[in-house]
């Protein structure tokens, strides 16, 4: 049985750990709040751009653009959004597992796919396994602005336009609630499933629909990526928050059982001492 001192040390260290996890939980909670506000601020932009893209793409059937057309797939792009830091429960591992399995399932050689990694965890994971990472970005702030992501989003869209890959999938954790995040796979390019809203407006185009598509579609694809990043960030903070909450709970449980053990050991020591004294006195008589 562990000595009194050992148990005491373990109780103190567990208490310290629980203080840290508790603090991390609260930090994540406030970051989650901000991330949710950011995601909400983005909604009007996304809705508007979706509306315009839909009314142009569906309203004028004779207009085509390379980004709207599916072509034979020789190479696939995978854009994977992960976090920079760990301690977020299954947040990173569930995405990485899904992507890894999909790649193994769909491709036989390294030339058939290319990975774009957003976040340090994803980048390191794929680099360590010698997979084909074309672009990566790490160290994004907790509340990313569009300009932080613009470079990599533009490059990802350009790779498609230049024919480096023929389709682009995006993987991220979709934020459902503070306790639920779903791993999501979304096809970004080509833009085949443009949601059509009920109220389509027919527009006059200045100068011509084709030229507007030229500006509009890359911007639309980039904002899809940005939207996923905001969603992913909210999920990250939520995942970290619940991971830290359960860590704090576990620490509390551990402290309780250790305290019980400590009291028992103390009581046993006292009882033993008394027995010894009584025994000693009895021997004297």
């Amino acid at each position, binding site marked *: 049985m562990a000595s009194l001192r050992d148990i005491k040390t373990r109780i103190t260290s567990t208490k310290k750990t629980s203080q840290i996890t508790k603090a991390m939980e609260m930090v994540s909670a406030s970051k989650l709040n901000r991330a949710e506000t950011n995601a909400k601020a983005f909604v009007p932009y996304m809705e508007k751009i979706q509306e315009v893209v839909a009314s142009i793409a569906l309203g004028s059937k004779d207009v085509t653009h390379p980004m709207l057309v599916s072509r034979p797939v020789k190479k696939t792009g995978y854009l994977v959004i992960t976090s920079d830091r760990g301690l977020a429960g299954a947040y990173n591992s569930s995405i990485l597992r899904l992507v890894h399995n999909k790649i193994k399932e769909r491709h036989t050689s390294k030339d058939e796919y290319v990975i774009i990694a957003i976040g340090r965890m994803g980048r390191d994971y794929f680099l360590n396994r010698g997979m084909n990472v074309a672009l990566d970005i790490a160290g994004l702030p907790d509340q990313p602005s569009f300009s932080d992501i613009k470079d990599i989003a533009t490059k990802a869209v350009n790779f498609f336009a230049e024919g480096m890959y023929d389709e682009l999938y995006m993987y991220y954790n979709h934020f459902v609630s503070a306790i639920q995040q779903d791993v999501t796979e979304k096809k970004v390019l080509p833009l085949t499933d443009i949601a059509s809203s009920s109220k389509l407006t027919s*527009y*006059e185009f*200045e100068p011509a629909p084709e030229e507007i598509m030229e500006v509009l579609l890359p911007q639309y694809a980039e904002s899809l990526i940005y939207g996923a990043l905001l969603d992913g960030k909210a999920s990250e903070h939520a995942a970290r928050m619940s991971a830290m909450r359960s860590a704090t709970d576990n620490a509390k449980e551990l402290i309780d059982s250790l305290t019980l053990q400590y009291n028992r050991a103390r009581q046993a020591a006292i009882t033993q001492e008394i027995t010894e004294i009584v025994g000693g006195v009895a021997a004297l008589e």
Partner: protein
Amino acid sequence: MKTFKVSIVTPDGPAYESDVEMVSAKAQSGELGILPGHIPMVAPLQVGAVRLSKGAGKPDLVAISGGFLEVRPDQVTILAQAAETAENIDIARAKEAKLRAESLLSNKQDNIDFKRAELALKRAINRIDVYEGKGQ
């Protein structure tokens, strides 16, 4: 005079919202003025200042970096990748960006992206102009 609603939206949230009498912006095909009752239209915009006139007095200026303008019978929406009203411009940052872009452009090295540097310079100059109330 009749007015209509204008909103400027960016990925980081709404940047401007107001009722105005006239909007003028620099479209890719040239300067564009919108008055109430305009037919529905979509036009891509250049990097430049958007002027929003509210009757008498100085018009509001908003610096726009890339995007497009959507006109509906009762409302005009500008979807931009970045937009700042004059009071929200970080002038120190804009000046710094201008210097950086200029030095990139004057250094005639092969490995720099001229198009990008030029665009960055345009955006910086646009912000500085709007901040100083020019561009009208």
